[in-house]
């Protein structure tokens, strides 16, 4: 299956202190013609290379800033250009949820279908997430109301939590609060990376974490997860545990070493990138949907380079590392941000190693796959 992180806009009604997608300049909104070109391209891709399965994660910016007419057009184009070709389409959405009112629930249900999940993110610490031009605290109120509306409509949601410096002393408490207030909800903990607003010096000085701090955060959160009985759906722990226990390899994109084979990102102007993070940072660009063909995309030298990254790392930086199977060199965007090259391991390598050694010891089979 191919996952398409599709950003119909980079506009956002919020102003989160560490937003990785924020960038200067006027906001852009995708038009119908661009969306058609994107679906034509990825319809061909899905048929020729993607096993006729496409998962579209509507992202941003804030995708729910797009008007109702856009969504009606999107649903129509999915039927016309994708489903009519025998392509299975699953929709998901990543939203700050503050524009999710009960009136929008029917649209959301049509978009997501019976299995779709709303992805959102949460940060309970004050002053981190606020809405533009409204009193402090409104974000939290609107967010809470949105989650109530989702629960009432029986729509599942998952939470992304960005781990930053201010959160470090409160991780166990944060974990407990999330599990209490959102029972049965998937949780995903990500480290703050230095991009967008988080790339500004004053923001990074306040909120940035080192690789070692990320490793320690993983140890703390993992401890809380173990005490909680290891509930499913808490990432990144579940896949690593499954890999260690069963050899099962279901790692998420940043640890799979194969993100080039499974993901694409598209920006509001139809620019095609490696993934959503890449489209935010304008790195790893393949071209534009208006001119790319699926064949050209498949044979793009950049994709080949990204495919060869694993070989390169295994014979250089990551040579002999017993944790190779657990991270495959980590996210290429981390390497790009720190070193300006895809051919380096993630900047969080030291922290990951620290966590793996603490959790799994060092008596593991050297990484091969």
């Amino acid at each position, binding site marked *: 299956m191919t996952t398409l992180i599709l950003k119909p806009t980079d506009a956002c009604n919020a102003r989160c202190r560490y937003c990785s997608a924020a960038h200067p300049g006027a906001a852009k909104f995708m038009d119908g013609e661009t969306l058609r070109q994107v679906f034509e391209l990825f319809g061909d891709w899905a048929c020729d290379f993607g096993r006729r399965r496409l998962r579209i994660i509507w992202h941003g910016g804030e995708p729910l800033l797009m008007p109702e007419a856009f969504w009606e057009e999107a649903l129509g184009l999915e039927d016309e250009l994708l489903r009519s070709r025998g392509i299975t389409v699953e929709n998901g959405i990543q939203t700050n949820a503050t524009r999710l009112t009960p009136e929008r629930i029917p649209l959301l249900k049509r978009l997501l279908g019976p299995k779709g999940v709303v992805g959102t993110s949460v940060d309970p610490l004050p002053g981190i997430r606020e809405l533009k031009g409204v009193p402090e605290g409104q974000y939290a109120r609107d967010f809470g109301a949105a989650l109530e509306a989702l629960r009432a409509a029986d729509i599942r949601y998952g939470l992304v939590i960005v781990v930053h410096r201010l959160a470090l002393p409160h991780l166990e408490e944060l974990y407990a609060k999330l599990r209490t207030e959102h029972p049965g909800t998937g949780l995903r903990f990500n480290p703050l990376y230095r991009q967008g607003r988080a790339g500004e010096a004053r923001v990074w000085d306040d909120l940035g974490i080192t690789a070692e701090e990320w490793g320690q955060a993983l140890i703390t959160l993992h401890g809380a997860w173990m005490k909680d009985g290891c509930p499913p759906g808490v990432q990144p722990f579940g896949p690593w545990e499954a890999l260690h226990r069963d050899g099962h390899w279901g790692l998420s994109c940043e640890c799979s070493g194969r993100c080039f084979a499974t993901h694409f990102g598209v920006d509001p102007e139809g620019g095609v990138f490696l993934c959503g993070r890449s489209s935010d940072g304008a790195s790893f660009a393949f071209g534009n949907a208006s001119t790319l063909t699926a064949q050209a995309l498949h044979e793009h*030298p950049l994709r*080949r*380079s990204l495919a060869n990254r694993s*070989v*390169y790392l*295994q*014979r*250089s930086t990551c040579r002999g590392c017993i944790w190779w199977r657990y991270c495959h060199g980590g996210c290429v965007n981390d390497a790009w941000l720190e070193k300006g090259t895809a*051919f380096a391991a993630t900047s969080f390598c030291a922290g990951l190693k620290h966590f793996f050694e603490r959790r799994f010891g060092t008596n593991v089979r050297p990484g091969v796959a």
Partner: protein
Amino acid sequence: MRPPIPFTFMPDLPLAWHLGELKRLSSAGIPVLLDVDTMGADEATQCLELMLHDPDMATPVEPFGSLLQALVEKQPMALWDLTFLERSGEAEVFRTLPKAHPECLACACFPICAGYATQMGSCATWQALIPRLAAAARALGRLRQEQEAPGNSRGFVAAEREELSPP
């Protein structure tokens, strides 16, 4: 098996002569080692085809034989790892590759070559050889799977069934 003897292509003699000599040596049970890095793509490819298809070839032509075996057995290896090739310099080549030779990292042959041909100046030759070797390895792998599949050892299975069937 005895170690392979070096076989050098002489520029004054035609390719057909060399192929004939390769065949003569191999059919006499003498394994041969080619200096692939000094050969042109066409010469090297024809030697590979001889090894793969000529029934009179009784011994491997190195380094093709070792590489083919590694590919069939899906060993994680690259040209740097082959006994019969120049193996020093990998670390230095790798350090400089992203900046000095980005085209190398975008090459489909990189998983097997891993920059070796860039150091040796033999990219064109190995770019001709590697896809052919990979295809041969896939074909040999499929053949091996078919031969090892249950029921293909017909004699053994048939005998077992006879023992279990009622009198």
